[in-house]
């Protein structure tokens, strides 16, 4: 009678946490991709005086632990009087963090398109914008998509760190249940299985895409 067991409510609580994890991942991925697309195009084509500082700033986001970035942003928020919720802060930090990686992915993709191809497009009369949308993007996508899928999965795994800001996502909800049931191994395994189930199929699709596209060349 004194043994606490895992109830159906606990499972629902975990699934709710997984939902929060997914929402944070999707929001930050969308923001990060948008920013990364802009920065990546700048990095691929801008003159050095714009390129170098942008690269250095984005590199800083990749060289400081995400947890420290979250803590810093959360501490900076009241200093400048920003009325954001912790959830917003977490999404923004993750988005900027994702953008730092996405920039390099986009840049590598764009630079993988041969300059001669782009010149040929322009000399056929395509405008800069047409060249970008119908020549560069389709060709860059092949190079960039597998890495981008990796980034999406990376963001999902890194989103576990937002528990430090008190957001109840999958890992935090697991921790809360552990404080009641005192069965850390079981609950963490279930949380791990949920992460695995979300991540593994997408990782396999990414690997298959990469292989089939490499074979075709």
């Amino acid at each position, binding site marked *: 009678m004194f043994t606490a067991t895992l109830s159906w409510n606990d499972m629902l609580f975990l699934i709710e946490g997984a939902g929060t994890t997914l929402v944070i991942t999707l929001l930050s991925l969308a923001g990060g991709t948008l920013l990364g697309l802009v920065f990546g195009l700048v990095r691929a084509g801008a003159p050095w005086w714009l390129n170098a500082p942008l690269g250095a700033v984005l590199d800083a986001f990749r060289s400081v632990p995400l947890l*420290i970035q979250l803590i*810093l942003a959360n501490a900076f928020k009241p200093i400048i009087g920003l009325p954001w919720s912790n959830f917003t802060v977490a999404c923004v930090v993750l988005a900027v963090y994702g953008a730092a990686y996405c920039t390099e992915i986009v840049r590598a993709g764009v630079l993988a398109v041969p300059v001669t191809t782009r010149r040929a497009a322009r000399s056929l009369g395509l405008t800069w914008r047409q060249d970008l949308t119908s020549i560069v993007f389709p060709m860059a996508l092949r190079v960039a998509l597998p890495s981008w899928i990796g980034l999406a999965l990376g963001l999902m795994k890194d989103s576990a*760190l937002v528990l430090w800001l008190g957001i109840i996502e999958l890992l935090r909800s697991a921790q809360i249940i552990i404080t009641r049931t005192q069965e850390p191994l079981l609950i963490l395994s279930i949380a791990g299985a949920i992460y695995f189930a979300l991540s593994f199929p997408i990782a396999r699709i990414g690997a298959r895409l990469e292989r089939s596209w490499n074979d075709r060349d």
Partner: protein
Amino acid sequence: MHYSFHWRAAFLALPDMLEGSLVTIEIAVLSIVIGVAFGILLALARLSQARIPKAVALTWIETARNTPALLQIYMCYFGLGSLGIYLDSFPALLAGIAFNNAGYLAETFRGGLNAVPPTQMRAARSLGMSAPQAFRMVVLPQLFRIVFYPITNQMIWAILMTALGLTVGLATDLSGVTQELNVRTFRTFEFFSIAAVLYYLIAKFVTLGARLLAWRLFRY
């Protein structure tokens, strides 16, 4: 804006934080050494025909790559308690990061082993080398050249992952020391800014060192 920054107190704590940085580097280096050792074993097990080692290697690699590093560290710190294994926060963090490193590095080594053409081995054997000799003198140097850059990358990841020690109550590494100072003074922004700069410098230092080493080792 009514906040006044207090940088002086933060700079006075710099010696403590530098000491914490050494612990951070220590954890990262140890986790990479353990990770490389297990990574090679996992890669060989994955490529082998034996079923049980292959299954163990696959489970390890896919778990390490498809769950958050924080969950792996929690598993070592909280989860192993259910099995009667009680790890302190330092070994738990080290074990978690090493587990993660091994999973990622195993794939690196597998790719490296596949990238050295089997004809090289045959050529070496036909020149009269024994199999271990050929592996050591022909395959291994080429393998090392291929995996060197991914290993340094993983080293940076390991450094960044050590900050997760905060979540399992490690108080001696850079983020732990910073958090101790933070709860005493509530100057979160100042202390963690300095910690961020130190992490950045450590990462750059490692990158630079690796580049110098690569330049020294890999010139023809």
